[in-house]
């Protein structure tokens, strides 16, 4: 009994520093966000308790509803494209061909570029007058597009995210593909399985768990992404790319309202978790 107590104490004493650290950097800020969401709190002013007022304000704000919609759309579409293209590139680069190492290395470069650099690159890439995108379009088809204008801005920001994110999917899938025994494919081939059947019944099950984790991580990162979109569009034109993090930023630093920014953060958590659950459920199937 005494030994058990000592063992328990030992366990607690080991875990306490880590727990304290975790509490300080994770739980405390989150708890504070929940706490402050019940207060009317303007920067520089003392908080005044306001009950659920901030939540009611946020829920009734059509821009917040749109932010949730556009964040979800942006995340889902971007993750689907990254999944498909990442897998396609992984299968392609898993083949033996001359210069494979060089191509693989080059393909990973976008993943290594910091977000703000990506944003700066694409800011100029999409520029109507000076951008490379329009230079190419003009040379090929004699037209120019307003890439970051109202009609094209959403596909444009999704394109940037996909461009940046594909290598992450590709590298992970490439690693997973190499763990699938070659003999499985050979046996399937002998049994007369088509390429699609081999892909469907060997490749996909073989990388299923990696796929699950990669999609999960990418969903979390994409939903919470701020830098690239803020730099490229600042949530505009109008509110077209006003994703949830930008909405929260504007509540805090344009509206100066820390309380409503906190309420918006808290409200978005269950929605975010629901999105993750749906993706996990879909992938498990």
């Amino acid at each position, binding site marked *: 009994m005494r*030994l058990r107590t*000592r*063992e328990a*104490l*030992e366990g607690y*004493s*080991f875990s*306490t*520093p880590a727990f*304290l*650290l975790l509490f300080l950097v994770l739980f405390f800020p989150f708890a504070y966000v929940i706490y402050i969401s019940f207060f009317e709190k*303007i*920067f*520089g*002013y*003392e908080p005044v308790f306001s009950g659920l007022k901030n939540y009611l304000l946020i829920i009734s704000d059509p821009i917040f509803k749109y932010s949730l919609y556009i964040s979800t759309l942006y995340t889902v579409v971007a993750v689907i494209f990254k999944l498909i293209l990442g897998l396609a590139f992984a299968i392609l680069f898993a083949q033996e061909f001359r210069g494979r190492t060089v191509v693989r290395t080059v393909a990973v470069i976008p993943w290594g570029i910091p977000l703000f650099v990506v944003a700066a690159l694409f800011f100029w890439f999409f*520029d*109507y*007058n*000076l951008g490379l995108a329009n230079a190419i379009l003009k040379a090929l088809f004699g037209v120019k597009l*307003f890439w*970051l*204008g*109202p009609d094209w801005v959403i596909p444009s920001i999704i394109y940037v995210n996909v461009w940046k994110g594909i290598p992450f999917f590709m590298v992970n899938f490439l690693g997973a593909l190499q763990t699938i025994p070659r003999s499985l494919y050979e046996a399937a081939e002998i049994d007369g399985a088509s390429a699609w059947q081999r892909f469907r019944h060997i490749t996909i099950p073989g990388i299923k768990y990696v796929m699950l984790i990669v999609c999960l991580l990418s969903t979390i990162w994409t939903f919470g992404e701020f830098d690239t979109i803020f730099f490229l*569009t*600042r*949530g*505009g*034109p*109008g*509110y*077209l790319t006003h994703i949830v993090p930008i909405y929260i930023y*504007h509540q*805090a*630093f*344009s*509206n*100066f309202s*820390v309380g409503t920014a906190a309420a918006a953060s808290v409200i978005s958590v269950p929605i975010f978790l629901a999105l993750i659950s749906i993706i996990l459920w879909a992938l498990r199937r």
Partner: protein
Amino acid sequence: MSGEPKKVDRRNFLYAGLGAVALVAIGVAAYNAMNPSVVTQTVTTSVPTTSVVTTTVPTTTATTVTTATTITTTTGVQKPKLTVLFMSTYAPAINDWLTARTLVWASKRGVDVEISTASYMEIKPKILTGVETGNPPDLVFGGGDLVALLAEDPKARHIEPVDDVYKELGEDDMVEKLVKWYTIDGKKYAVDLALHANQVHLIKSFVTEVGRKPEELDTWDDYIEFAKEVKRRHPDKYPLGFTLGKCYDGTETWYLTWWPHGGEMCTGRSSTAVKFDSPESRENLQRIINWYNDGLINPQMLQADEMLNNNAYLTRSAAFIIEGPTPYYAAVTRNPELAGDTILKVPPKGPKGRFTWGSQWPLYTFSASKNKELAKDLMIFLMKDKAEYKKMILSGLLAVGPIYKSLIEELANDKNVGHLYSVYKDSIPIVTFYSYPLSEPTKAMDTVQANYLVADLFSMTLIDKKDVDTAVKTVGDQIKEIFRRTYGQ
């Protein structure tokens, strides 16, 4: 493997305990590092160095640093450290001047300075979080639309009055409007580094091409007629380089076209004093929509980006823009041919007169600052020596004008640059701020401006396809609500 329970090693307890202690120690050390023991410094001009610090603080002839009594001669004294946050302007020479003069001051006073710069977008979050955590920078340049927010309410007055700075600099010689803009309840809370007034950047070759002379363009009707003529000749151009996005310059587009046509924001500090929802607002919005639909404004201008109008001018894809002349600075430094083909003029006149937007470039310090007296001393150092100050103005290549009336007069009469700087002399009577006609700093209008609410009019009508009435009413109601929330009426 034995089934015997594992014996607990006492050393493990010790390690765990040490780990916890180390964690606490790191926390305490980090806290102390962020909150050094030197707590106050006051600057005087003539008293010799106090006995407490004479042996360790570098003495200067002009300034004495008196520290708290916790500092002793035996433990050594930290030099006071001034944290300075500068907005990076689009005229880098001005920032270079600021940095250089700050370092000269620091060297003369025996003070350490930590200078950081932030873009217009970054500076507000930095200031606000500094205020919120009780650790604001000692001196700020920029964040002009935060001054009323942080100084108007007596319950949350975070900015330190600088009336003594004005006294030193000579308030009588300053442009009154700029002084008034920082005066709240009879006290002054910031001092403008310079006058940054919007000017028309008119590309002369477009004007001559349509058979006109720059001096003939005076009213809004003149300019629009000119723009339409340019469009007829160059269907690929968008002659009006006006930003319509939800950003600072988007609001400038609204105000610069609205005021001359009778637009007014507020006459007092209550929701009933808000005058936004008016026929003038509807007419002005319809006017801008028509320009957009006529192809005079590039659809790209709906993006929230302050650089778009600058780029439109620098690439000659617009015939003119109206902006604080930092694009002109860029042209002089990067495209002299364009600069030579540009004339700076005060903005067009409308039926209700001529107005220009006066951006705020303020210097201020905070009540919570441990070095506020040093910060004020730096403000005086930067601005009192008019010969040095003039160098900063000239280095800006017309990007800014001086805040001193005497210096504006001097520059406007200069035989070399007078013809250029007279535009600032002409600007003084027409400089207008976003709370016009109240024209006083108000926390509610700071919030309206920080939200770029008036720029929503463009996206509501041009993107969301709402009608003009709905857009003006929606924005008007939002402005009233902000006033109601701020002033309780």
